[in-house]
């Protein structure tokens, strides 16, 4: 049994989607910073 099998539904799907969008935004901004540093 996975360690947190009993709390699969603790995070509502909408909140999980919002969290993944925030992660993606952070990754994209990080990459943009890198590109900007590369160009200088």
């Amino acid at each position: 049994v996975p360690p947190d099998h009993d709390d699969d539904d603790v995070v509502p799907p909408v909140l999980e989607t919002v969290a993944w969008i925030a992660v993606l935004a952070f990754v994209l901004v990080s990459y943009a910073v890198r590109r900007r540093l590369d160009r200088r």
Partner: protein
Amino acid sequence: MAARSPSRRALTDPGWLAASAGLLAAAVPLAVGVAAGHGRRAGVRFAAGATAALAVQQLFAAGLVAHRRRRAGPLRGLDAVDGLTLARSAAAGVIAGALASGERRRRALPAWMAWICLLPSVTLLDWIDGPLARRRATDGVGMVLDLESDSWVTLWTSLAGVTWGELPGVAAGPAIARYALPIVAWRRGSYARLADAGRSWWSRAAGIAQMTTFIVALAPFAGARSRALARAAAFVSAPAQLLAVGSLLSGVLADPERAKQDARAA
């Protein structure tokens, strides 16, 4: 007075000492937080795990830097950009602490701390230290720290992935196998070749796929579908990364410069 050995010089470099002290100091408030949330025993174990991982990382990297100095002659001391590179390995310390704490639930405080440290470590910090380092002369010190910080973070992340991220054991294989590379390269004097080969697009793609799998698997907010996706991805990303490690190893073993040196020695 006898000259100090390269190993001792690396370990007593003011920048090295400052980075080591900073990394260890950063673990203290996190350990206090774990103790407050999960009890003193978990906090002490977190502190011990984080300290051990950071100490091993610092000693191992110092050994490699000293090795480069023996081969390449005197190199500069550590600067702020090197400190940034070393800060990436703080994530390894936090993950090691989380593993040691005994609180291995995905949504427990140590797992949250580990994931929050991991994300910027493998994205923002990893991506900006390269361009910053290139503004000054690139040298062996930065190369060693960059490669070894990456490897150390990946190793502990993979262990967390199979412990509380529900990933199959094979997911940790490439990160463990990768440690054959610096040892072989160290013995053959081909460390620079290792860095060059690691820049190939397929090697980078395999590394990105592997780390994406870990980030999804360990995300405290990940639902059942995301975790199932990460488990499935591990069966693709782990063999791909194993192939990349194998290719790097064969590249180090077939290093033409080293072969020329061997031929000359013969």
